[in-house]
């Protein structure tokens, strides 16, 4: 194995090691911790770009990394293909931006922010990389455990209440996840996703029923994560109660659920999988449509920006579920672009909420961190003193003049992006989805038309809600001479929006990449071939 191949495991190992090393450092050594986590996240972006260029050759196969060099179906295997690499890059970019934003003040609102943040990144990356279902569960749990800590970051009554629901729901769904895995294992005798792609087409009769029920129970876990109606009621309150950078990072977590659904439906239930082919497509379609409707209604009813952003996460999940449910490669290509653009957009939106509401002089209870100590060793007194002192003296960066103009333009940018209006990437993505649906319309009939209508109408709802919120928040008479916006807060928002702009400028290569990704997803034999590699002999036993 060439040394460069070991890069595959770096997105898991790096954050783990960095988080572990930070645990032994005292909370007082803030700058060292900040430096370590920023360096780790930057490296993650670099690694993701390297992996992406490696798997994106004209005929490059997915890259399989066998831990301990055991032959594939019997041991743990990590796989990078175009989809994984894309998701890794997305997660790393979002992680870097939100973490940078957190440096403004949120990382001081409670202890151990940095290790938790990096462990969340580790879980997310692991879920994108893993090649078998059980490790998917393990990495889901790593991600969730870190997210419980992050959801509680800053403490306070509001957060504790929302987190209690969040934790209980997620523990319960993890159990469903396990039932699904156990059923699938009982029928197929494997948990390796590539092996699954090979064995599912051979099933029939009773076994097929068991497999489908296993997959359905498993999918419930993913649907809860993605926030599908009626399983997504926890999402908006939890995200709204979480600290701003944490909520923005959670945007990628709901996409982990979508990723798992795309991966599983392509590998085990694609057109090539015999009797099991496309068994859940109508459910995905119906669930996605209901989620979009619920999200659109929630968005129109939302009185807070956090409610709008939460509803947008739901709409985005709904759109992606519908697109996956069509089971067609061109639609999926557009959906992947939509996934990237909507995640970046909603992430920027969550980061924008705080400065915009501050500018409009809205006191948000949840925005204020709790001062009571939770654990003995928190040294919250120390942290809080710093917190308040720096509130006054504005240690990081200068206050930007013409704040309202900047905030306003960022807000409009976000609104266009989320509503899917030209000229931004949201428009291109929706256009690609609808174009794919129109070309496949003869086979889809009314379902296709309903989906197209739902996508357009949810965009309209987004636009209405954002316009109303914008008028209420930005066109208010300013009483203070100048609202505060720090450079360290403005930069990540700017970077996220610039990434969306880059998606438009580079629309040609980006769409080509998404098309290739969708094409590769609909060719599970290629994925299975790369992972299982029949030419490869089991390693020689050393006696």
């Amino acid at each position, binding site marked *: 194995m060439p040394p460069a191949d070991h890069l595959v495991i770096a997105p898991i190992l790096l954050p783990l090691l960095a988080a572990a090393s930070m645990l032994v450092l005292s909370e007082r050594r803030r700058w060292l911790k900040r430096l370590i986590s920023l360096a780790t996240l930057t490296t993650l972006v670099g690694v993701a770009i390297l992996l992406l260029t490696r798997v994106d050759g004209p005929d490059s196969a997915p890259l399989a990394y066998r831990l301990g060099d055991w032959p594939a179906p019997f041991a743990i295997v990590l796989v990078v293909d175009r989809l994984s690499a894309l998701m890794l890059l997305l997660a790393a970019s979002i992680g870097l931006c939100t973490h940078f934003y957190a440096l403004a003040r949120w990382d001081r609102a409670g202890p151990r922010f940095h290790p938790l943040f990096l462990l969340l990144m580790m879980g997310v990356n692991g879920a994108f990389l893993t090649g078998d279902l059980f490790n998917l569960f393990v990495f889901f*749990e790593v991600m969730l455990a870190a997210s419980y800590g992050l959801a509680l970051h800053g403490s306070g009554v509001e957060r504790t209440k929302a987190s209690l629901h969040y*934790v209980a729901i997620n523990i319960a769904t993890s*159990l469903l996840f*396990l039932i699904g895995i*156990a059923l699938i*294992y*009982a029928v197929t005798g494997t948990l390796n996703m590539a092996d699954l792609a090979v064995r599912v087409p051979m099933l029939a009769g009773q076994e097929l029923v068991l497999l489908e029920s296993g997959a359905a129970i498993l999918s419930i876990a993913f649907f809860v994560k993605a926030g599908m109606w009626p399983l997504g009621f926890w999402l908006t309150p939890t995200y709204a109660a979480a600290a701003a950078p944490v909520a923005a990072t959670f945007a990628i977590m709901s996409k982990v659920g979508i990723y798992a659904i795309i991966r599983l439906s392509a590998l085990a239930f694609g057109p090539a999988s015999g009797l099991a082919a496309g068994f859940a497509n109508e459910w995905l379609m119906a669930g996605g449509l209901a989620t979009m409707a619920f999200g659109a209604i929630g968005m129109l009813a939302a009185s807070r920006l956090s409610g709008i952003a939460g509803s947008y996460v739901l709409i985005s999940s709904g759109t992606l579920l519908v697109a996956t449910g069509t089971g067609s490669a061109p639609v999926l290509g557009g959906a992947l672009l939509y996934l990237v653009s909507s995640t970046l957009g909603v992430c920027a939106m969550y980061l924008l909420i705080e400065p915009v509401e501050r500018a409009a002089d809205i006191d948000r209870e949840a925005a204020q961190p709790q001062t009571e100590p939770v654990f003995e060793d928190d040294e919250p007194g120390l942290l809080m003193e710093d917190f308040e002192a720096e509130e006054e003296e504005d240690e990081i960066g200068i206050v930007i003049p013409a704040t309202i103009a900047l905030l306003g333009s960022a807000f409009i940018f976000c609104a266009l992006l989320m509503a899917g209006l030209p000229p931004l990437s949201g428009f291109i993505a929706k256009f690609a989805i609808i174009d794919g649906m129109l070309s496949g319309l003869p086979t889809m009939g009314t379902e296709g038309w309903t989906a197209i209508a739902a996508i357009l109408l949810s965009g309209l709802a987004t636009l209405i809600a954002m316009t109303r919120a914008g008028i209420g928040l930005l066109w208010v008479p300013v009483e203070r001479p100048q609202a505060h916006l720090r450079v360290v807060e403005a930069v990540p928002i700017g970077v996220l929006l610039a990434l969306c702009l880059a998606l438009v400028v580079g629309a040609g290569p980006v769409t080509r990449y998404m098309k290739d990704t969708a094409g590769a997803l609909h060719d599970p034999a290629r994925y299975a071939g790369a992972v299982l590699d029949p030419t490869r002999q089991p390693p020689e036993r050393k006696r």
Partner: protein
Amino acid sequence: MEIILSLAIGVITASGAWLLFRPRTFQLAIGLSLLSYAINLFILAMGRLKMDAPPVVDKAVEADPAALADPVPQALVLTAIVISFATTALLLVLLLAARGLTGTDHVDGTEKTP
């Protein structure tokens, strides 16, 4: 044995699910723990039930798959136990925090007066 095991899983799951829908946080914690026990038994059962069969191959003897228990579900159960133990511990801390902050042990943080 199949009947006993399936009855056990069914009863534990039912009790766990019932407790899950109760309004007190302590009932919630116990319900989730019961459910996780039931799931662990379920995973074990999915590897097919076998009495007195070792999961590890003895090198000295010719390996006969029929005489061995499937080791994979056992490994899965071990992992699942560790994970559910950790998340339950975290849930308990959260329950205490919620009790302290809201002054009630209702899962919604407020008592509803009928």
